[in-house]
């Protein structure tokens, strides 16, 4: 049938038909996903929320912390400046979940998959578009947070003269922490996307994603056994992942900064694979 349809109009739309024949490639999928995200207002507001809430919480944390003249303060200025990531990650998770969840709740997913039968392409396109947007927003958020720390902290007693490093992207560990925080947000987006693909319901997915983000640090706070504390610090996604923000006492951390981000990447990979398998093998 479709061959007949195409055969009837090769002359008129030769230039258009050619891409349509291969019209289920990754580029088209990307274009479709980008259009979907671009044309509704929700994602834009959420991305703005990532930037605003992250910088807002970071600035609040930086503004509230003073190091009085007397004692030395056991504060990691860079980590303090990037506090807002704790908040921003929640918005990132919502954005990523809604990218898939909204399609299931409106039934749009059936149209999407009918148009793009190669589901892994749809999934990859969603992942690329969301992660790209999150990385951009995350870069603004982390940059703004570092700037807040750079401007405010020296006035609060965190001066080089007292042994604190300057919070600035020209300082290697701070640059690593800031870039790592942006990557962290990207991984959180992918993790949430995988969770949403597995669960296929926005509400439940958001609950599950926020539980993954916030529950482990809370459990860690309540656990009293040092051995289990160490294990949780090394192997839970957000606690390990956020060690990328540490710039002081790096050698006494339970896991190295990049190693911690790697642990988060493993969790993300597992969630993406599981979500992908569900999308691939289940009826939508």
């Amino acid at each position, binding site marked *: 049938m479709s061959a007949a349809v195409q055969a009837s109009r090769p002359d008129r739309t030769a230039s258009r038909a050619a891409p349509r024949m291969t019209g289920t490639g990754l580029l088209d999928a990307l274009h479709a996903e980008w259009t979907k995200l671009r044309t509704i207002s929700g994602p834009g507001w959420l991305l703005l929320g990532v930037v605003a809430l992250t910088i807002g919480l970071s600035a*609040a*944390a930086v503004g*509230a*912390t*003073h190091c009085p003249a007397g*004692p*030395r*303060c*056991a*504060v*990691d200025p860079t*980590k*303090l400046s990037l*506090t807002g990531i*704790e*908040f921003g990650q*929640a918005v990132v998770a*919502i954005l990523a*979940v*809604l990218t898939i*969840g909204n399609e299931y*709740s409106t039934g749009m997913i059936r149209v999407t998959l009918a148009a793009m039968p190669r589901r892994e392409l749809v999934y990859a396109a969603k992942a690329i578009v969301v992660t790209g947007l999150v990385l951009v927003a995350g870069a603004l958020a982390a940059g703004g947070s570092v700037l807040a720390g750079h401007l405010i902290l020296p006035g609060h007693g965190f001066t080089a003269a007292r*042994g604190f490093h300057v919070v600035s992207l020209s300082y290697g560990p701070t640059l690593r922490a800031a870039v790592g925080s942006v990557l962290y947000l990207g991984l959180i987006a992918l993790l949430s996307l995988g969770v949403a693909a597995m669960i296929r319901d*926005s*509400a*439940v997915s*958001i*609950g599950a994603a*926020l*539980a993954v983000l*916030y*529950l482990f*640090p*809370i*459990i*860690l*706070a*309540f*656990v*009293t*056994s040092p*051995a*289990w504390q160490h294990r949780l610090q090394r192997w839970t996604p957000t606690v390990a992942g956020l060690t990328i923000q*540490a710039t*002081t*006492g790096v050698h*006494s951390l339970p896991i190295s900064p990049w190693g911690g981000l790697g642990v988060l990447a493993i969790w993300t990979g597992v969630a993406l694979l599981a979500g992908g398998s569900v999308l691939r093998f289940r009826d939508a």
Partner: protein
Amino acid sequence: MTAGALSIPRAGAGADAARGGFGRLLRSEWTKFRTVRGWVIGMVVAAILTVFVGLFAAGNATSNCSNSPTGPTLSGKACLPYIPHGPGGEVVTDSFNFAHQPLTGNGSITVRMISLTGEHANITNGHGAQVGGALAAGLAPWSKAGIIIKRSLHQGSAYAAMMVTGSNGVRMQYNYTGDTAGLPGKVSAAAPRWLRLIRSGDTITGYDSGDGTHWTRVGAVTLTGLPATVQAGLFATSPTYTVTNTSFGGDSNNGGPSQATGVFDDLTVSGTPAGGRWADTAVGGGGPVRGPAGSGPAGSGPSGFTEADGRYTLTGSGDIAPATPGPDSTYPTATIEQSLAGAFIGLIAIVVVAAMFVTAEYRRGLIRATLAATPRRGAVLAAKAIVAGGVAFVVGLVASTVAVAVGVQLETSNGQVVLPVSALTEIRVVAGTAAMLAVAAAFAVALGAVLRRSAAAITIAIVTVVLPFLLAVLNVFPSGVGDWLLRLTPAAGLAIEQSIPNYPQVTSVINPAAGYYPLPPFAGFAVLCAWAAAGLALACYVLRRRDA
């Protein structure tokens, strides 16, 4: 016009139908709830996860110890020292150096105190804190020395004492939990402090004075069942000196022993045998700490009591105070609410289900049928809040009862000292956790009705409860600012879980992870209720004003 004409018969029939109407409304909402399989499963999963996560957090700490460097490693209960209990049944710390004489019948003890000095473990605070080295001069805030009348030399026996403290002025303390402030300021030879305790029957009255002639009554306490002969005398003690590094990513506590030395003269006692001698007893190993910190247990040094020309010098370490949860405690203490950490995962599941309970109706258009069947929209909202809250309460009650009951068993068998509380407090903690979940469910229902989108409602409900708590636990903000997060946000409701009060006479860090909240339990719960009430009021308003 038409609406007015229609409202007349409705109002007339309303008085009769309203009650049956709301009952029916409740039943229809309950039917909606229980027939959605996912929601029922969600609630069951919430209960199971709450219990398991809570027991995991509470049950994995087993303390290991050894009696001697070469001896076998012991674990669990075998590690515990003798745990004294105070007259009120609470676990207490009772270690101090005591220069005493028997006091028979009514009598009094008066002394002038001219100095309180101390030494504590030399802890370098900063990046990479170090513990060790020689003792450094200085007092802990609650280092204390003074006079005491105590039932016996047994740890945990009843007492009343007048004392000078490191930085809290003169205090009268009794029976471990009682604490009344007297004269402020520090003691010195230029500004001495006179202290007096008078025993009359079971009642002991404490006085202080700055000049020895003008006395102020600080307080009186009745020590029920005090025997005729008690021990009276001088005491000195000083709690573990703790430096807490509150920094983002969790705080670290560095502690070490400390000791306090009090110098007294003009000691007069009435009611003791004439010419009695002062005996020195290190109650509970509360003698002085000598040598480098950590080189030996408290009380391993010389006796620490000297008497020359009517001047008495007494050095002691330890504390006379209630045992508290958290890292500063003398024993590996645990609280009954420690196994309720899993309530967070229960909370997340309950918030998801409660928000969907409203938003699912909007998504599927069922809300129009619901509101057509019951035009009183406020009543619909109330019925939804009651059903969601009721289910959350029952689920929470089952989960928290199991978690606390099993958790206390686990902690005890792991060799932790579970701080005992009254049955009423235990009920408040367990039922309060369930009520907290119920109010959070009502809050989520309100958010669902206002926002009509599950994603937004769930996010706001979870983030406003969980994130402030997390930021407070992680010490992102300095404690003063962090405390306000737990006073103003819905997370304040978790204070209902605190079983051990914030004793002012024990230095502790206000951190929910250690069992302390800045607000009293019911005040914190009231804050959460206020959020839910405000949310429901707003939901009621917009539900009436808006087209469904």
